[in-house]
């Protein structure tokens, strides 16, 4: 098939043509190095040694059919698309040789021939273009850029910015936190059992009558947040004093007021 090789392609592809394309080996079966029927047709067309625009499609169809016939005589396995092309060309040949039917459907034989010629021209044009492209002065192959470029050195400096408002907000927020934490400490002031016991012990001598516990604790229940801790500690302390026999406790029902009395005043109202 050497006579079919395109001069331009041979220049840059040469003998490596077959060896150099492992990537599409699986996609088609080479017919003696051809990439499909169009490639084969293009090679055959070149043997006519005329401008592709003026090529005889009829002659080309004959060449192709004869070539395929020869391969089949050699019992070569042919890829299906070569046979499809052969069938199509045989059909095209008949359309070109027979007079066109009056009411023909689809494209005429002439139009089909023109379309094939166009495709061959276009493929060849792209091959020429590829050859011209690849033979340009290519950067890194024929011409070279600066071998040791001097990179731009970037030194970065950080300029911080903040507004007066940011500053004041940051200051106020911190001082506010500080304030809150001070209040917090006071709120967590707790009466211990000992505190409750001390207050109760001090009061006990004066409790001749049943007296609600809240009454004599009232001086200490000044703020709502103190109420719970004062009451709880005092109640706990009172139970302890009851156990020791130093005070009497009475309650008429759940959550009713607690009354305290000095046991020494016993019988005063019984």
């Amino acid at each position, binding site marked *: 098939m050497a006579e079919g090789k395109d001069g331009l392609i041979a220049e840059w592809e040469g003998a490596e043509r077959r060896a150099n*394309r492992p990537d599409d080996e699986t996609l088609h079966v080479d017919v003696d190095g051809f990439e499909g029927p169009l490639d084969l047709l293009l090679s055959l067309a070149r043997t006519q040694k005329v401008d592709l625009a003026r090529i005889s499609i009829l002659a080309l169809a004959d060449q192709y059919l004869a070539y395929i016939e020869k391969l089949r005589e050699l019992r070569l396995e042919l890829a299906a698309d070569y046979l499809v092309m052969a069938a199509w060309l045989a059909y095209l040949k008949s359309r070109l040789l027979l007079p066109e039917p009056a009411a023909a459907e689809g494209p005429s034989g002439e139009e089909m021939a023109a379309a094939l010629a166009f495709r061959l*021209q276009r493929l060849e044009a792209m091959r020429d273009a590829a050859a011209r492209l690849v033979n340009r002065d290519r950067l890194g192959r024929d011409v070279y850029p600066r071998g040791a470029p001097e990179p731009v050195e970037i030194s970065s400096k950080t300029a911080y910015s903040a507004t007066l408002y940011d500053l004041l907000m940051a200051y106020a927020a911190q001082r506010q936190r500080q304030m809150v934490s001070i209040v917090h400490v006071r709120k967590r002031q707790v009466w211990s059992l000992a505190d409750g016991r001390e207050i109760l012990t001090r009061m006990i001598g004066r409790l001749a009558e049943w007296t609600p516990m809240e009454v004599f604790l009232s001086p200490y229940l000044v703020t709502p947040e103190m109420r719970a801790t004062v009451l709880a500690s005092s109640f706990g302390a009172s139970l302890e004093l009851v156990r020791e026999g130093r005070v009497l406790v009475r309650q008429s029902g759940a959550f009713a007021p607690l009354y305290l009395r000095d046991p020494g005043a016993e019988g005063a109202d019984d």
Partner: protein
Amino acid sequence: MTDDSNITSLAPESRRFALRLVEALLFASGEPLAASDIASRLPEGSDVDALLAELEHAYSARGVNLVRVAGKWLFRTAPDLSFLLKRDLTEARRLSRPALETLAIIAYHQPVTRAEIEEVRGVSISKGTIDVLMEQGWVRMRGRRRAPGRPVTYGTTEAFLVHFGLDAIGDLPGLEELRGAGLLDGRIPPGFAVPEPHDGPDLTADEDPLDPGDLLPSGLGEEQ
């Protein structure tokens, strides 16, 4: 080299300084610089185009030339010294014939789909062929054709222009003749519409943007 190429002895001090700046910037860079990049490093009001033209001329007969590629400027060695420099510099990987033809078809027909490339070549192309071109940085996915199946459209990159020494895609060799012969046209018979290759970042009327996943490294798989 002619006498007027002796930039600095003829130019007034400020112009001479500007020329030195442009020369240094371009010389230091391994990559093409846009005139606007250069202008941003020069004194206010410098005529960058004139400075570049002067340098281009001054270097035209030297061992190193100033050339315009992909609309940007680059110093590179003179082409006629190629054979002397080539020896120890590693040669770019040779492209297979299918890859090269595919590249040419993408360049001249862009934006183009895989099916259209196959129609021109008359055979199917393997996925690997386009991948090689994309890895090389010469081909990119542009968008998706507004057509059934939304096939991906391919086009060339700036690196393609730089590598092949083209200032713009319109400078492709033989483009005029091919266009005149109607060979850049898809299916319509010769002599009708005259498409031009389009490699701009903006999509053409019949292209949609790529899908988000298309640009992922593994997203190359389309049109299975």
